[in-house]
C-alpha cells in the first residue's frame, strides 16, 4: 500500500511539474486508462511486486488511480456498451469484466484461453465480444458468459488485435501472425486479406471514414486500406525494419495519424498518412511501447517509451513532458467514455 501511495503521489507530482493543464472548463468525456507494467522488465510471475502494475485510470489527465488488481500483464481496456460503469479487460488471466469501474472483477474466460491481447465489442451487436488469443480468436455471443473459438480459416492463428467494422455487424478484421484476416459472418469464416511475414500489432478503423483502415506490423511496416479492409497497401515512408506497436487515428482530425514502435520511435502524419514525421525528439528513447491521441483535447498525444514515464505532448509530438509514473511500460493507453 505504501508503494502504491507513493507512486500515486509521484505521478501527481510529475503531472504538476509537467504543467500541462487540467481539463477544467470542458470536462473530458473520456477517462484515460493505462495498462502498465511498473516493476521493470525483470519482473517475473510469482515474484514480489515492488510496484503495483495493472490498470490505472485518470479522470483529469493529471492524477492516476489504480483500478482493480495489480498484474504485470494487462493488455487492453475497453468500455462496456451496456453500462457506462462497465469495463472489459484483456489480461494475462483472460478476458475480465468489471461492472463497477474496476472495484470488482470477474474473469469471463476459462482455463483454455490465455493471454488475450485484443478485445472488441461489435457496436451493432453489443452482446458479441471478440478476443484475440495467442492461439486463435474467441467469440462470445452473450457478453462474455460463454465463449467459442472461431478462427476457422486462419493459418497460424496467433491474434494480436481485433477491429470491428462499425458499419456492419459481424464484420471483423483480425491482425494475426501471418496477416490480416477478415470475417463478414461473425467469425464463422475468415479469409486472408493481407498477408504479412510477422505479427500485425495494431489495426484501426478511421473514426472519420469507416472505409479506411490502418494497420501496423512487425516487419511489414504500416498498411493502409480504403475499401473497408479488403485490399491493403504499404504506407510509404514507414520503415519495415522495426516492430510497430501502435497505429492510431486522431479522432479530432482526419488528417492526423500516429504510429510507434520498438526503435521506430514515434511518427506522425498530418496528411492522411502520405508523409511521416519523426516526433521522437523529446522522448527519452526510441522504444515507444504505445501511443494514444486524446479524444477530448485536440492535439494531445500520449506516448509510453519503454521503461520511462508516460509522456504527454500538447502539440502532437513536437514537445514532450513526462506525465505519469517513473518507469512504466504501457501495454495500452486507451480512452473509455466516462459514465
Amino acid at each position, binding site marked *: *500500500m505504501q508503494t502504491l501511495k507513493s507512486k500515486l503521489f509521484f505521478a501527481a507530482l510529475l503531472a504538476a511539474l509537467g504543467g500541462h493543464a487540467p481539463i477544467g472548463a470542458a470536462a473530458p468525456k473520456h477517462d484515460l486508462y493505462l495498462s502498465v507494467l511498473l516493476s*521493470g*522488465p*525483470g*519482473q*517475473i*510471475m*510469482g*515474484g*514480489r*511486486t515492488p510496484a503495483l502494475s495493472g490498470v490505472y485510470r485518470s479522470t483529469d489527465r493529471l492524477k492516476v488511480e489504480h483500478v*482493480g*488488481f*495489480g*498484474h*504485470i*500483464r494487462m493488455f487492453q481496456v475497453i468500455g462496456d456498451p451496456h453500462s457506462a460503469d462497465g469495463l472489459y479487460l484483456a489480461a*494475462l*488471466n*483472460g478476458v*475480465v*469484466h468489471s461492472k463497477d469501474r474496476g472495484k*470488482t*472483477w*470477474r*474473469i469471463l474466460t*476459462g*482455463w*483454455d484461453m*490465455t*493471454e488475450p*491481447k485484443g478485445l472488441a465489442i461489435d457496436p451493432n451487436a453489443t452482446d458479441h465480444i471478440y478476443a484475440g488469443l*495467442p*492461439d486463435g480468436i474467441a467469440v462470445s455471443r452473450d457478453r462474455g458468459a460463454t465463449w467459442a473459438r472461431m478462427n476457422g480459416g486462419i493459418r*497460424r492463428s*496467433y491474434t494480436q488485435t481485433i477491429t470491428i467494422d462499425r458499419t456492419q455487424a459481424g464484420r471483423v478484421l483480425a491482425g494475426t*501472425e501471418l496477416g490480416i484476416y477478415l470475417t463478414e459472418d461473425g467469425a464463422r469464416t475468415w479469409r486472408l486479406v493481407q498477408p504479412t511475414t*510477422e*505479427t500485425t*500489432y495494431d489495426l484501426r478503423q478511421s473514426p472519420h471514414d469507416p472505409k479506411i483502415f490502418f494497420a501496423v506490423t*512487425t516487419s511489414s511496416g504500416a498498411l493502409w486500406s480504403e475499401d473497408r479492409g479488403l485490399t491493403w497497401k504499404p504506407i510509404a515512408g514507414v520503415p519495415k525494419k*522495426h*516492430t510497430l*506497436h501502435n497505429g492510431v487515428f486522431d479522432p479530432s482530425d482526419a488528417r492526423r495519424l500516429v504510429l510507434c514502435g*520498438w*526503435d521506430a520511435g514515434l511518427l506522425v502524419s498530418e496528411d492522411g498518412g502520405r508523409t511521416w514525421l519523426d516526433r521522437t525528439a523529446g522522448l527519452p528513447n526510441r*522504444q515507444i*511501447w504505445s501511443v494514444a491521441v486524446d479524444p477530448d483535447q485536440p492535439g494531445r498525444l500520449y506516448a509510453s517509451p*519503454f521503461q520511462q514515464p508516460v509522456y504527454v505532448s500538447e502539440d502532437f509530438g513536437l514537445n514532450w513532458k513526462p506525465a505519469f509514473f517513473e518507469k512504466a*511500460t504501457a501495454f495500452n493507453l486507451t480512452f473509455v467514455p466516462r459514465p
Partner: protein
Amino acid sequence: MKTLSCLALAVVFSVPLARAQPSFKGPMPDATVIVDASLRRAAYLSRIDEALVWRAAMAKPGEPKTFGLGEIVSKLARREDAAACSERLIELMKAPTGDMFWMFPVTAIYYLGRDQLTPEAKAAVREAWRAYMPLRGDTENHWAMYYSSLYLMAQQWPDEPGERWFNGKSSRENFEESRDYLLHWMELTTTIGQGEYDCTHYIGEYAIPMLYLATWARDPAMRQRGRMMLDYIFADYAVETLNGMYVGAHARTDDTTLLEKWNGLSSFFGWLLLGNCPPTVAYGGWGIYFVAAAKNYELPEVIYRIGTDRAGTYTHYERKRTRHRWRNSDVRNAPVYKTTYITKDYAVGSDQGGLLQPIQQHSWDVTWAVPDPRGVHNTIFSNQPHFSAHELMMYFTEKPDFMPAAVTSQGKPTYIAESKLLGGSPYEQIFQRDDTVISLCHVPAGANFEQVNGFFSKDLARFEEDASGWIFTQGGNAYIAYRPLAPYEWKPLEVGGKRLRSPHGKNGTIVQAASVAEFKSWDDFKAAIRALPLEIRLEPTPRVAFTTLRGKKLVCTYGAAPVVDGTTFDYSGWKLFSGPYLNAEVGSGKLTITHGALERVLDFKTITITDRVKP
C-alpha cells in the same frame, strides 16, 4: 516471459542458514537399496521430519520476517504452534504476493490447518482469496499450481457466489474450470508427453500440486489422478537419474544446475524419495511444500527400484513435446525425441536438437557419477549458443524486441551471451546411439552466434588434446572422448574449467563415452577411440560417418535423417516411453512401469492403477 526458477533460489537464499541442516551438510547418504518396505518408509518419514523440523525452526521469536508461509506450513504439518501460526497468518494475508506461488502454500496451510488454525486466521485466508487476484501465469507449471490450488480451495469453500472469489466466479465455476484444466493437462501429458519435461527445477512445481490433489481432493477420481501423476512424474524422473541427479536433456534447467548437475530441486526429490543423494540447500526451498503433505504419498517400489538400481546398463527413449508454440511454428507442440543411456558410472542423454524450449533448454550431455556431487561439475557437452526474438516470439506472446534483453534480468542472465552454455539452437541437430552423441551445427551467416561452445569441467580427472583431433578426458569412472569438428580455442570460465570456443558456423561435436572398467588402461581407451572409423566433412553442410565404440555405423548429415548401420533412421515410430523400465504408446494415456518382477500400470483413460508382480 515469466519464469520462475530463480524465485525459488531467492527464497532459498533469503532463508538464513542458522541451523544445521543435516542432510545438506552431512555426509552423502548411504545409497544402499533398502529392500525392506518398512525401513524404506521409515527412512522416508524421517527425511520428511528432518525437513519440517528444520524449516519450522527458522521462525525466530520476535522476528516476524522469519515467520513466513514455509514456516507456517512446517509447523502445521508438525501440528505445533497453531496459535502463533494463526496470528502470523492473519498478518501475512493482508498483503498477498506471489500469485500461483502464493496460492499453493496458502492452500497447504489451509488444509493442514483446517483443524488447527483459529477461525480468524481461516477468515483471513478466505478474505485473501477474495481480494487478491493472483496471476494465472503463462506456463504449464504455473497452471498446475494455480488450478490445483483453486480446485482445492473451491472444494473447501463450496457453494459460494462469485463475489466471494478474486476472479468473480462462483465456487462451482472455479471448481469446474480447475478440474477441466487439470484433466486436460493430464491427458496432454499422458498422450503426447509433458511440455516442461524433465526439468531439474520445475519438477517440484508439478509434484507439489499433484501431491495436494492426491492428498486433499475429495473426488476420488481426482485424488487417484493426482496420485497417478505423481507416480508418472517420479517414474519419468527416476529412470533418468544417476544417484539422484537428473541427467540427459532437459526442457528447462539453469546455469548452475547445467554444470553442477546435482544442484537442482530434482535432487531434493532424489533425496526424499530415493535416498541416494543429498538435498539441495534448504531442501530446495519449495521442497518444504512437498514434505508438508509427503506422508500421504508412498513412492511405488517399482519406481524406487528404477531410481536406485544401476546394476545394468540401459537405454531409455521417450517422447515429449515442446512448450506451446504461439508463433513461428505450424505445430503447437512439436515432438521431442529423447534418448538416455545410463550405466552405473555415467549417463549420456540427448534430444534431437533444435529449438524445443525457450531459453533454458539443455539438449545433451554426458554426466558421470561422483561420490559426492556437491560442488562438482560432472558433465561434458557442447552447445550452439543461440538467442533470438524469433525464439521468444515462438513461445511467448510478448512483443518481441525487448524480450532478449529482458530475459537476462528474469533469471536467465546468460541468454544473450556468446559464452552461454544453456539453451537450444535451431541450428543444432543431434543424434545419439548408446553412449555416442553426434551433434552437428550449421549456423547461417549473421545469426547469433556462429560458433559452438564446449564445456570442460574443472573436475575432469584427465584431459588430453590428442594429435588425432580427439580430446580425451576422464570424469569419475567414465572415459569421455570429445571430438570437435572445427578448430577451436580455449576460454576460461569463471566457475572453473574452460570453454572450448569453436568460432565456425559449420561445426559439430562427437562424444563417445565408456566405463573405465572397460579398458585395461587409459592408453587402451585412447587407442580404441583413435581406431574408430571416422569421416568428417563440413562442406557444403556438416556430415559425420562414425563407427561407435559399440560397433554401430552412424552417418549423420545436417539437414538429413541419420543413418544407422545403413538404415535411415525414422522418428515416426518413437514411443512416448520405451525401454526396459517405462513403456507407453503415444496417445495411450497408459504408462507401464517395470522393474524386474514389479510392474505398475497407470491408465489415465480408466483412472486405474494396477500393481502386478510378474511370476
